[in-house]
């Protein structure tokens, strides 16, 4: 057993911490709010130049990380400044998926920062279920005709191509296609989110694609593993934002006076801050376990180890939802009015924490997954 991070992992965290601390000024955030991309292009390019995308791929895939710990560290740093750069949508759902699907040339292009892709998977009726997919790919002479609708595709407008999921004919398997953004029959309906990010509906109406667009005809296993990485990433990002929220709150309690004493002198404030600290510690521990189990499963690639990794990531995502609600609400409440304002940084963290709970399954969803696995184990 070794509880400390390796030098490489420590460096990854420190590098990102310094980088984001320097970049994420309030001006930068204002510029992002008004940007078309939903993030800052310069920051993204520098991240690519620093080679940070390599942290998302294993050595075999051409990166230098790609393990649970890398994702945990990277996304916590993102969360600590509530950064908007698309390391989930273009990084994990784009780059990592391309690598898992062995699309080497695509991986190279993305790594060089030349293009972005992402995955359009969930649909209006999926809610959080991976396998509720109604998009249809009908075989044609030259390839396939695709119809369907994909919901809430983060950063879609910034991509050149999409991986999209669909079922071929009567098959129940989920196939993955690679399609261009600009193609007849594809419409994006894009809006901006509370936190400045952009999101699109993708309408696919009789899109004609060649047979080479079909990348994999049964992608469920790959998607399930990929989504466990996404859950870890979202939980870690939320945790980073929780740490920042908690720190802001603790500091403000010391500064702010009421009834002639700093708020931090009030016992109720003390206990409530301590409860925040403890819950954050607990979540941190849960993420360490999930990251560990994912790494172990990637190394061994045994089914049982992946099962354990799914349990651990479901646990972590559940706990990040529950803890996140507590930290957000308590941070705002303890701040009082100032915590409600746009200008004060707390709101950005709170929004990131809360909204991450709405991607790839909220706490109810993941608790249910945990219960299913718990019951399977008892039989």
């Amino acid at each position, binding site marked *: 057993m070794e509880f400390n991070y390796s030098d490489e992992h420590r460096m990854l965290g420190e590098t990102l911490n310094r980088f984001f601390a320097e970049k994420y000024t309030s001006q930068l955030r204002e510029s992002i709010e008004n940007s078309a991309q939903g993030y800052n292009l310069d920051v993204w390019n520098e991240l690519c130049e620093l080679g940070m995308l390599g942290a998302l791929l294993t050595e075999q895939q051409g990166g230098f990380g790609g393990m649970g710990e890398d994702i945990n560290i990277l996304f916590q740093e993102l969360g600590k400044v509530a950064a908007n750069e698309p390391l989930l949508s273009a990084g994990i759902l784009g780059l990592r998926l391309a690598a898992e699907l062995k699309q080497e040339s695509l991986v190279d292009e993305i790594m060089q920062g030349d293009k972005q892709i992402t995955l359009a998977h*969930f649909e*209006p*009726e*999926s*809610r*959080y*279920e991976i396998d*509720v997919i109604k998009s249809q790919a009908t075989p044609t002479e030259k390839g396939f005709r695709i119809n369907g*609708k994909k*919901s*809430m595709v983060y950063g879609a407008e910034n991509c050149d191509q999409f991986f999209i999921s669909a079922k071929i004919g009567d098959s129940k398997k989920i196939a993955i296609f690679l399609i261009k953004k600009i193609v007849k029959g594809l419409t994006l309906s894009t*809006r*901006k*989110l*509370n*936190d400045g990010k952009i*999101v699109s*509906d993708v309408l696919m109406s009789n899109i004609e694609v060649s047979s080479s667009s079909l990348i994999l005809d049964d992608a469920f296993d790959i998607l399930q593993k990929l989504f466990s990485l996404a859950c870890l990433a979202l939980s870690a990002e939320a945790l980073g934002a929780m740490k920042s929220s908690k720190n802001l709150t603790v500091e403000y309690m010391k500064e*702010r*006076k*009421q*009834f*002639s004493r700093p708020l931090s002198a009030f016992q*109720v404030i003390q206990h409530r801050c301590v409860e925040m600290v403890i819950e954050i510690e607990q979540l941190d521990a849960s993420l360490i376990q999930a990251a560990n189990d994912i790494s172990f499963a990637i190394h061994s690639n045994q089914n049982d180890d992946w099962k354990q990794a799914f349990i651990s990531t479901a646990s972590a995502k559940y706990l990040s939802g529950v803890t996140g*609600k507590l930290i957000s*609400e308590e941070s*705002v*409440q303890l701040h*009082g*009015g100032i*915590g*409600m*304002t*746009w*200008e004060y940084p*707390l*709101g950005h963290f*709170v*929004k990131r924490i*809360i*909204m991450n709970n*709405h*991607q790839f399954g*909220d706490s*109810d969803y993941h*608790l*249910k997954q945990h219960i299913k696995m718990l019951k399977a184990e008892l039989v």
Partner: protein
Amino acid sequence: MDLQYNQDELTFQQEVRLFLKNNLPENLSQKVKLGLELEKSDFDQWHTILNTQGWLASHWPEKYGGTNWSSIERHIFEEECCFAFAPRIIPFGISMLAPVVIAFGTEQQKQHFLPRILNGEDWWCQGFSEPGAGSDLASLKTKAVLENGEYIVNGQKTWTTLGQYANWIFCLVRTSSDGKPQTGISFLLIDLSSPGIEMKPIKLLDGSYEVNEVFFQDVRVPVGNIIGEENKGWDYAKYLLTYERTNIAGVGASFVALKQLKVLASKIKQGNSYLIDEYSFASKLADIEIRLTAMKVMNLKVLSLVQSGKAPGVESSILKIKGTEIQQQINDLTRQAMGPYAPTSISEFNNDFVLEQSNLYDDDNSLFQLGSKASSKYLNNRKLSIFGGSNEIQKTIIAKQLLNF
């Protein structure tokens, strides 16, 4: 003990329902139903309709234009307005300032200000909170110095709700720094068109504008605009804060919001079933419903106190805490109900477009709409437990007054 309305109360309820059916404009009720932002003209329109009927300021004495409704009747009126999706009555003039003017104002102040509140000529806002004062109101610093029959006011107020619509503000200002902090405060009425006043909007974390900062620089206020005696303003403010808090729990509005949430949950698909079929969701919904039903009875208990002539004390604090908790829980659960659609931003949508949707819940676009409202409302309503005396302050009040701690 009988919680059912009696025959007279049922007759009154029918009268209110009929009035609302015939007089509440559909453009207003639709906006309220969909949780859209109401503008000044919307509120003015509704105030005018109610005033014409004589029901705008139902709790005022009849001689100033009020009704002589019992507290149960006032409750029925408020409940029916909620169920009909009527806009809320803006309280700053009608329910906050007016009772103070009626109780402590001069005859001239009453003659001048009360009719203007009723007919909409004046829109009042509140100038109590200051930056750095928060729930510790008595530590306020905005100063008023008497010079040649005028108060010269300098300082800053904040969290002034809907100040952007107002032409008058009632303020607590410091007129003396002798003795306890509470003793040197006066209650001043200030015309917002006076030179030296600046009203600056505060953007909230959900992107909305509804509160403001107000800056006063050498603002001259006629001495006749003071309420009651100088340095007694704290007493008047306390009167204001304990007066007319029977609707503080927002029971009617919460029942409506819960009903909407139930319908939503029975329409949102979750794979092959509906959200309402998920025990995790349904159990939270049921828990809220059970607590809300209990709160309805707690509210009735306070009404019956008021009816028998007692002023509610800590009961108001309890209702404030429970009422805001429940509203926030409903907001939270509505956000959760939206699932992946919850993070959608408010700014992208067009009110007119939403209103065109014939059935609120039938297609993805309206889901987006509701999602947008749900998470903005969740974020925005975190304020409920902070403003109006934070829930922590309320608990401390209860500990002191009820438990003698």
